[in-house]
């Protein structure tokens, strides 16, 4: 009988993911056994504890690099570590927002407006499943950018998506919309991951292996049926472009962003982008690097369309969350420019941009959770009029985030925009840069429109008010603000760290 060789797993390197998963399992246990009274605080502390612990571990292993952390199906390298760290950080801030349970229904299954629901709300109970769900999603997101074979990629993709589908449906107010968002997200997500899987199949067919480096090698060797490769690349891209919300795979974004509970939107908008782009970058940089003649034109076109579409349509939005959704589409376009650069500079720029954008997005949605009336959040732009008069501080914070999105100097957004465009230009994608510049001019229009609304128009007395945020919410928003400004004034430390750390190893 052949000798059995145990699989080598370097647990210290996988620890961050394992910790999060562990935390998630504990969370499930708590749901099962702990009494309703203590659940909320318990869940919250467990979740935050887990995330912090994982973050610490990530920091601990930041300089160790190996392709064989888990038998070659997951890698630990600078880029991966940075992504994981970023995701965890965003997750922590996100959980701070989620902790404000006002936004969540108590019994997700209850029929809207039913006796059951009203009772549950009066009982003042809280919904705590969201915490383990978040942790599962985080684990998936952390796995996504470091996985180096198609199997792990697919699993990670589903692992981050499935919890999000559910979380999208948990909003306490506007239940129908929330559920609809969940449905749409789920159906389309499943649809796109089917494409992803089909593409994976053909790549496997082309290369005879599921490992990215293997595929890369096969492309270099150029043996094998090119048709398989091309179909593979195309369909795999569909799955990934769907997650980042690139046109024409963007359609879910506005609906889901609007329907989902705002804290979830914040978390999802920020973290999912990082994870998805992490994977996208790895796949294109490691796997398809030598096939770039084939895919670069496509991605270029998609990037251009995405930038323009996002910016132009955002102008016509009347709902703040939808507007931010379209702006995130536009930003996906900008980020694709980083992918196109296909260079170290491009990688660094993309990572910086992802962090800057993620933090700002979290902050922006965080502010959105604060503007309410008796019936819940106000997302209708017209009712934001005169916010600057009602609560100058909150308005100023929001304005700062918007200016960061618009890429005004002295905010993180500007540095990000500059670095990513310069990287793209350096590698001859002038067209993307030009369009990018123009569309950010267009984009500026609607960011500024909101600022005008908040500061230059008089408040309408319709019960719209800014609630006094809970400590955690305040903490996360202010942190986001501080980082946005700091990265605008002194981006050097982070940039240096990124450029010294961020590499893909095969």
């Amino acid at each position, binding site marked *: 009988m052949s000798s059995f060789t145990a699989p080598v797993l370097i647990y210290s390197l996988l620890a961050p993911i394992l910790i999060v998963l562990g935390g998630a399992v504990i969370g499930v246990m708590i749901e099962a056994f702990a009494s309703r009274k203590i659940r909320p605080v318990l869940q919250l502390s467990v979740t935050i504890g887990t995330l912090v612990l994982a973050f610490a571990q990530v920091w601990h292993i930041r300089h160790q690099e190996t392709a064989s952390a888990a038998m070659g199906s997951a890698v630990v390298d600078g880029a991966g570590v940075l992504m994981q760290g970023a995701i965890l950080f965003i997750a922590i801030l996100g959980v701070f927002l989620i902790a404000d349970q006002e936004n969540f229904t108590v019994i997700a299954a209850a029929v809207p407006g039913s006796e059951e629901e009203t009772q549950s709300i009066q009982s003042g109970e809280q919904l705590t499943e969201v915490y383990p769900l978040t942790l599962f999603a985080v684990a998936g997101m952390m796995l996504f950018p470091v996985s180096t074979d198609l199997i792990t990629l697919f699993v990670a993709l589903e692992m981050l998506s499935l919890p999000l589908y559910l979380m999208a449906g948990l909003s306490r107010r506007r239940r129908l919309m929330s559920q609809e968002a969940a449905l749409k997200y789920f159906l*389309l997500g499943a*649809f796109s991951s089917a494409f992803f899987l089909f593409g994976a199949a053909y790549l496997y067919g082309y290369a005879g292996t599921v490992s990215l480096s293997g595929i890369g090698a096969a492309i270099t060797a150029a043996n094998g049926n090119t048709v398989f490769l*091309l179909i593979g690349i*195309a369909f795999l891209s569909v799955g990934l472009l769907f997650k980042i919300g690139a046109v024409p795979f963007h359609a879910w974004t506005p609906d889901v962003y609007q329907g989902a509970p705002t804290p979830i939107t914040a978390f999802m908008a920020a973290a999912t982008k990082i994870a998805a782009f992490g994977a996208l970058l790895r796949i294109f940089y490691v796997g398809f690097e030598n096939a770039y*003649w084939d*895919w670069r034109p*496509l991605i270029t076109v998609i990037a251009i369309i995405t930038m323009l*579409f996002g910016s*132009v349509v955002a102008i016509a939005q009347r709902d703040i969350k939808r507007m931010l959704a379209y702006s995130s589409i536009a930003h996906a376009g900008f980020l694709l420019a980083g992918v196109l650069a296909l260079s170290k500079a491009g990688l660094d720029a993309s990572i910086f941009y992802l962090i800057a954008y993620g933090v700002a997005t979290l902050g922006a949605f965080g502010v959105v959770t604060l503007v309410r009336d008796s019936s819940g959040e106000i997302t209708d732009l017209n009712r934001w009029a005169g916010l600057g008069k009602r609560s100058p501080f909150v308005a100023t914070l929001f304005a700062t985030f918007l200016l960061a999105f618009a890429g005004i100097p002295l905010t993180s957004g500007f540095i990000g925009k500059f670095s990513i465009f310069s990287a793209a230009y350096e590698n001859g994608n002038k067209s993307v840069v030009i369009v990018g510049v123009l569309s950010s001019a267009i984009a500026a229009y609607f960011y500024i429109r909101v600022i005008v609304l908040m500061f230059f128009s008089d408040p309408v007395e319709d019960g719209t008010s800014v609630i006094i945020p809970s400590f955690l919410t305040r903490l996360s928003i202010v942190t986001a603000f501080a980082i946005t400004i700091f990265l605008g004034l002194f981006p050097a430390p982070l940039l240096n760290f990124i450029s010294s750390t961020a590499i893909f190893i095969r």
Partner: protein
Amino acid sequence: MTSNYLVYLIALPLFGSALLLLAGRKADKWGHLLGTAMSGGAFVIGLYEFTQMLGRSNEQRAVTQKLFNWISVGSFQVDAGLMLDQLSICFVLLITGVGTLIHIYSIAYMSHDLDRRRFFAFLNLFIAAMLLLVLGDSYLNLYVGWEGVGLASYLLIGFWNQKPTYATAAKKAFVANRVGDMGLSLAIMISFATLGTVSFAGVKEHAGQASTGALTAIGIMLLVAATGKSAQFPLQAWLGDAMAGPTPVSALIHAATMVTAGVYLITRSNFIFDAAPTAQLCVAIIGAITLLFGAVVGTAKDDIKKALAASTMSQIGYMILGAGLGPAGYAFAIMHLLTHGFFKAGMFLGAGSVMHGMDDEVNMRRYGGLGKFMPITFATFGLGYLAIIGVPPFAGFYSKDKIIEVAFNAGGIKGITLGSAALLGAAITAFYMTRVVILTFVGNKRWAEKAHPHESPALMWLPMVLLAVGSVASGFIFTHGNSLKNWLAPVVEQSPVHEGELLKPAVVSVLALVLVILGVGLAVLKYVRKDIPLVAPSDVSIFTRIARRDLLQDDFNEALFMKTGQGITRALVVTDKSIVDGAVRGVARLVRGSGSALRLTQTGFVRSYAMWILVGAIGLVAAIWVVTL
């Protein structure tokens, strides 16, 4: 030679005006005295410099004073420098002398005006600017004075600008002058571009090497400047309206000094015009046209000041004509300028005194027989009258005849035309001046009941008397032994005495006299012992009507410049709103529109979203296929 006192010529009146303007009402009590003192002080300095000059040999007379380096950029170097030579001293004495007299006159004339202090401030400002004009040692310095006097004249014409028409007159004068100034600044640019300098000395030195074309260009531009400032055709329209200013202003600025700046400019630039015959000819022609133009307008005016203004225009025409006749003419142009300074100033002051006695009535049809009520005014005015129509031995006789003579001696068609124009002008002058005198001082009285004419106070008639003396004696003094001609010789170097004279001087004088007598006679027949209607008869020939409308100069300008200008303005305002800014707004609207249009793609139906994805996927495959082919 240098002198350290030149700057004080300008500094004194400048200080005066600054002080009077800043001191405000506090200075009301002594403001007029200070102003007069400053002007007088300048006159004294002028006299001092003059005596100094007399002490030196003819070549050594010019003195200069460099104050500081004004503008220095690369090769463009302009000093704030002053130069007093034989030409400028004439002006200095005229400006400060007549100026001081008019200051004195104004003390009484303006005594009832609340803003008398401001009036004197402006007068001093004018004196300073005018002195800078004639003392500057480069075209740019001259330019400063040039616009300075323009400003002063604007302020003084509009001194009573609460009356809209007066304000308009002031604006009109400034704008017309600006058109001229444009010529001057272009002339300066051209001379810098061609000669590399703008100082009189420099230009004079290098003028020889420059091409005739360039010099002609400079000359024409200088002429444009002159027409603006000296109310010559075609920029003459403003002078008549300028009579809106208080009468002393008309006497000082719009008769004696400022309006003659053009003559100074051309004489000063003799080295350019002598090298650019075409330009010189233009000068002469402009002069000839204007002298007739002014004379004709003069015949139709009922407003005494406007009549005198027209006559001024015509007399300056003579001067310009003289200056346009080259070396032979410069001296006489200047001579006529000086004599004219005396008699025209005198007559204006006379007119002022009449108005003073007739509570500011200016319509000569409402005068008549004033001679016995204001004898001194009549006498001084009469002397001035004799001078201007050129009756020997009064001043005008010498200066004007000389110009006519030189004009004839220019020779050929040119000589004949110019000469006869000048002669004709003399006749018309005689006619309309006689008309003025008759309507005003002789004949039956036609004034309103409430008016009770009286002679003006001594402060007013004293200057008039002095000026009258000037208008009697000056001509003889200047011509005696060609004094002025020789005096100016170093500045306007004489060309060797030119071709055989067409007409003997005596002949010219006789011709002129005959024509003058004709003019006078005609006027006498037409206006003496005949009752003059109080309102100008309307059943008159088309020519009269045209003449009354200043030969349609305003209608012309209005139709050609104002109307088109307003048209352009209106058109551009619309263009800016609808086209230029419209384009901007259009782009914005386009973007917004496409936004709202694309928004509709978000139907809300999950199946259509799936369709997008499917189409996208197929598109990707297809595209990637195409790319790899």
